[in-house]
């Protein structure tokens, strides 16, 4: 292999392409041979060849990059395999799973943090997305520009560069967000009250969730004892374990554009006649939203909820960029995937990491199955 990294890749890529072409022809000929054995017509044999020939990249890739890795990781999850250690790999049975599920505090923290994002973050995110979608659905001029600007955060989303900008803005002392909160608070007293109420609620709930993490509720008692926040309090964003998850929620709300598009599609599917009929009967817009649009949007809300939950398990970049160098607070916001990465690649405990991967996989499968089961019960699909 050439030493130059760029040349090295180009050679590997050329070999990969060659491998794919060879395996495509191989799979195609094999399939045609089998079809001939079964006595298919020449036309059908030709189609069998073409089908497997064109689908081969995916089939081969599925075997190499999905099936085999999953098989190996299932096996390793029952061992104490570690890269870089000289010790022989030992079969340990279900011990990894037992440790993760019942003894591992960090795993428990990641589960509870996901719960926080689901219970507190997702309703906010879905609410804002729905609100924006309803506004955009009024057939305004310039709707496209608004739609673009609401979707742009999804594109920029979790790029490190954009997250660093958030870090600058979320700085507790000099960050622009707290500066704005401070100046509005001084100029307009009701906002000051609102700000303090929000801070209080947020800190109590965050302390409660942190208590769930450790099983000790000292922090919650301390927050309640400290009482209502003082007049000059501002959110602590990336500085305090009480606020780290809220910063992630802020990022989630900022990136609600994808959910908004799904709601827009849902709103478009609602027959106009329903609204017209209700209007004739004297329903005001507020009633029409809650009695017509909202029930018909439940499938979309449900879909967003499930997708949002699954992505909350997978949050990685915001935690890495905002908190990685502040070890004491990482555990207050750690996600399952971040924990998986930390465990597997800082200590190279492959066996343990594999067990975490399988647990993440199973949790996501369970959520998906529950989605399919429940959607019939919760959700209004039919109008007529």
């Amino acid at each position, binding site marked *: 292999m050439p030493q130059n990294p760029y040349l090295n890749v*180009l050679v590997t890529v050329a070999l990969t392409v060659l491998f794919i072409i060879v395996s495509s022809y191989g799979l195609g000929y094999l399939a045609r041979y089998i079809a001939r054995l079964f006595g298919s017509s020449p036309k059908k044999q030709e189609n069998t060849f073409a089908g497997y020939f064109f689908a081969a990249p995916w089939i081969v890739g599925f075997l190499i990059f999905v099936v085999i890795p999953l098989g190996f990781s299932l096996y390793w999850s029952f061992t104490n395999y570690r890269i870089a250690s000289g010790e022989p790999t030992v079969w340990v049975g279900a011990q990894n799973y037992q440790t993760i599920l019942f003894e591992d505090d960090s795993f428990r923290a990641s589960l509870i943090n996901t719960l926080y994002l689901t219970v507190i973050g997702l309703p906010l995110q879905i609410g804002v997305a729905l609100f924006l979608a309803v506004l955009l659905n009024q057939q305004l001029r310039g709707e496209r520009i608004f739609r673009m600007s609401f979707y742009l955060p999804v594109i920029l989303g979790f790029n490190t560069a954009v997250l660093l900008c958030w870090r600058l803005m979320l700085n507790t002392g000099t960050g622009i967000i707290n500066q704005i909160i401070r100046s509005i608070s001084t100029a307009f007293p009701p906002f000051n009250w609102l700000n303090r109420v929000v801070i209080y609620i947020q800190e109590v709930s965050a302390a409660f969730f942190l208590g769930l993490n450790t099983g000790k509720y000292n922090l919650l008692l301390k927050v309640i004892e400290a009482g209502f926040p003082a007049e000059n309090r501002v959110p602590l964003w990336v500085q305090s374990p009480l606020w780290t998850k809220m910063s992630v929620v802020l990022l989630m709300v900022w990136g609600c554009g994808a959910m908004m598009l799904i709601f827009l599609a849902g709103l478009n599917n609602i027959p106009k006649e329903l609204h017209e009929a209700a209007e004739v009967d004297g329903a005001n817009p507020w009633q029409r939203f809650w009695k017509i649009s909202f029930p018909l949007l439940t499938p979309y809300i449900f879909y967003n909820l499930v997708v949002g939950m699954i992505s909350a398990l997978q949050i990685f*970049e915001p935690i890495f960029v905002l908190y990685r160098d502040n070890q004491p607070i990482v555990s207050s916001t750690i996600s399952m995937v971040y924990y998986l990465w930390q465990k597997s690649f800082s200590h190279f405990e492959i066996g343990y990491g594999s067990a975490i991967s399988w647990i993440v996989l199973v949790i996501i499968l369970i959520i998906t199955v529950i989605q399919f089961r429940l959607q019939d019960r919760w959700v209004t699909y039919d109008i007529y």
Partner: protein
Amino acid sequence: MKKYFPIIKSVVLYTVLTGATVLMSFPLFWMISSSLKTVQETNSPGVVWIPQNPTLEAYTAIFQNQDFLRSYFNSVFYVTLALVGTLISIAAVAYAFSRVDWPGRNVVFFLMLSTMMIPPQALIVPQYVFFNKLDWIGTFNPLIVPGYFAGGAAMIFLLRQAMSQIPKELDESAFVDGANHIQIWWEIILPLVKAPMATIATFLFVGLWNSLLTPLMYLQTVDLYTLPVYVSTLYNINQTVQPWPTIMTAAVLTTAPLIVVFFFAQRYILESVVVSGLKG
């Protein structure tokens, strides 16, 4: 009184929407504004909305920073290489699922759809071991090669839907004229699905350009870092004063391609998100 309602309504609507737009785009504004400031201004306790004397110092400095320029080149290089292979292989597989009738198609298609439920991160540990065995750690290979095997079930699905809508008679008459499947795929079908291909290319580009986890795992030396990895090293807790103008300049230059691509592709994206999103 009643006749003023529509006017009041649209005034309120526009005000709220404009407010939301300002909030949503504020991080971008702040990024650009901060990149033009001095270090003192970015760390000062007072609000500096727009710098008093905008300075391009950070920009001239970053264009002389070899590490930054190299990471920019690395990103462009790896994204281009990965994008081309992924796009072509996805187009081939989507053709198999939409235009060819072969035994086992439904089974394979169902398998492909069910891989959408597997979170990619559940595979990183065994894949890392696999690439370690191949001695690929510290090269770009692990970031590029998997894509060549039609990575991305949702994208295949999106393209398959588009290809299914092309009338069947088109390929049949081409067959009669003696064309084979590869010719039909490349010369007839692909030109007809340019718009969905552009959408998919945009999604792939955004995903690759923003990707942090895998580059972080596989590129272990600074001369291989892609932009997200390099930019994340600019912020360092051990520095007492963060060089915010430099970081934000790097951020502006990192996000610029995303914004340009989004601007040109937004028409396709905003429509197709809905289609692909709901079937997932």
